[in-house]
């Protein structure tokens, strides 16, 4: 049976792992390659590396880092941050990335999704969406790390991303991110029902039960988290044993 995936996310700034709480207050937590290899050994199913360095020099450092990751890590990994054209994606593919995630650049230029999918295949393209709950079914899509609201709404935008060729959706609830009270399960379940591509849930993990909930109530295909893994609040082996015990299909 296809296993639900547990995905640690590593935010990278200047070659180091960081984790922002609600996307501000940035704090360093270690070497990305070492941390990634450790997570892989502990049973992480995939890894996500997000480059939050904005500068041009930072990008080159990140491509070099991706090469080191690809040489050293034996599970699939996604990289994201600052990808706004095909050549950015091409450099990361050649460096060894299995998938890329695009966020703000896709909101500004939706055609980028089509172009990436056509050139590299849908399996290579993860559409990351940061959204903030407004009212009812309305979630406002935000860009620039949650700082700028846009005209787009979560559900139609996610559907459009799928239609344009995205292979997965990585949805982060800005209301839940860093708060550790559980994932945005209602919105996630609706995404999963609306779309036929896998949904990666992000934002809100604080306890092992939250993962059980996101895979059952939230109908997510994968659960992503950062700080609870980086700060060893929830060791991955414990989490996977717990989920297995709860009847969730998991790779042990």
């Amino acid at each position, binding site marked *: *049976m*296809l*296993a639900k*995936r547990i995905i640690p996310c590593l935010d990278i700034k200047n070659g180091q792992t960081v984790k922002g709480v609600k996307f501000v207050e940035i704090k360093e937590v270690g070497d990305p390659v070492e941390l990634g290899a450790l997570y*892989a050994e502990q049973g992480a*199913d995939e890894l996500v590396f997000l480059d939050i360095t904005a500068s041009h020099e930072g990008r080159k450092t990140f491509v070099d880092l991706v090469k080191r990751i*690809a*040489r*050293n890590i*034996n*599970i*699939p990994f996604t990289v994201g941050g600052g990808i706004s054209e095909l050549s950015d994606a091409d450099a990361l*593919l*050649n460096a*060894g990335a*299995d998938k890329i995630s695009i966020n703000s650049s896709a909101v500004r230029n939706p055609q980028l999704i089509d172009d990436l999918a056509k050139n*590299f*295949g*849908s*399996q*290579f393209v993860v559409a990351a969406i940061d959204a903030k709950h407004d009212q009812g079914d309305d979630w406002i899509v935000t860009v620039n790390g949650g700082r700028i609201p846009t005209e787009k709404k979560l559900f139609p935008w996610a559907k459009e991303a799928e239609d344009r060729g995205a*292979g*997965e959706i990585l949805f982060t609830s800005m209301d839940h991110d860093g708060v550790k009270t559980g994932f945005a399960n209602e919105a996630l379940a609706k995404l*999963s*029902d609306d779309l*036929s*591509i*896998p949904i990666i849930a992000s934002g809100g993990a604080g306890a092992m039960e939250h993962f059980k909930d996101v895979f059952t109530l939230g*109908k997510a*295909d*994968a659960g992503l988290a950062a700080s609870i893994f980086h700060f060893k609040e929830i060791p991955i082996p414990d989490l996977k044993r717990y989920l297995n015990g709860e009847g969730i299909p998991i*790779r042990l």
Partner: protein
Amino acid sequence: MNENSEKHTSDSELGASDSQKIVIIKYNAGNIRSVLNALNRLGYEAEISADPEVIKSADKVIFPGVGEASTTMKYLRETGLDDLIVNLKQPVFGICLGMQLMCSWSEEGDVDCLGIFDEKVRKFQLPEGNPDNIKIPHMGWNSIYNVNSALFDDSLENEFVYFVHSFYVAKGPDTAATTKYIIEYSSALQKDNFYATQFHPEKSGSVGERILSNFLSL
């Protein structure tokens, strides 16, 4: 060494390596470097090449692939790699699209393929109403069972490996491992010197490394 051929070694000591020559077939598909990285982690050197003489002289040949079937078959025909691959006598390992191209026909682009395995490649069909929210592609970790090939030792029965695919090969006489996703299908095939997996051993953690090691030990 010509322009079609590059030699690669890992940065680390090649402790586990032996003197065999491993060639990864270079063609217009992604993911080749991932396979090379995995071999290097196991301590093996490998050459990425499209040169027929280099490929023919290898002890082991790996035919990887991520891409679209009809485009890739067209490329293999134009370059003559199609006949070359079919006639190889040493152990050959097809991965993902590589496995699909080793079958007789693919629904992806309605294209005749290499015909090493007498199987057709078809697209997954969602069940009526899709009550379980099944997604296509089949992406993520799933288990292999009824393993039956030198690629797998018994300890690999029911282990999880990493898949990304929308097309599959049904079960048949050459099935070397089975996986269930919507239906039970062939997650590995073997016939004579040809070995193939639908999943990516190079991305399947320590389990995948054991499968690659088994192939390299043939």
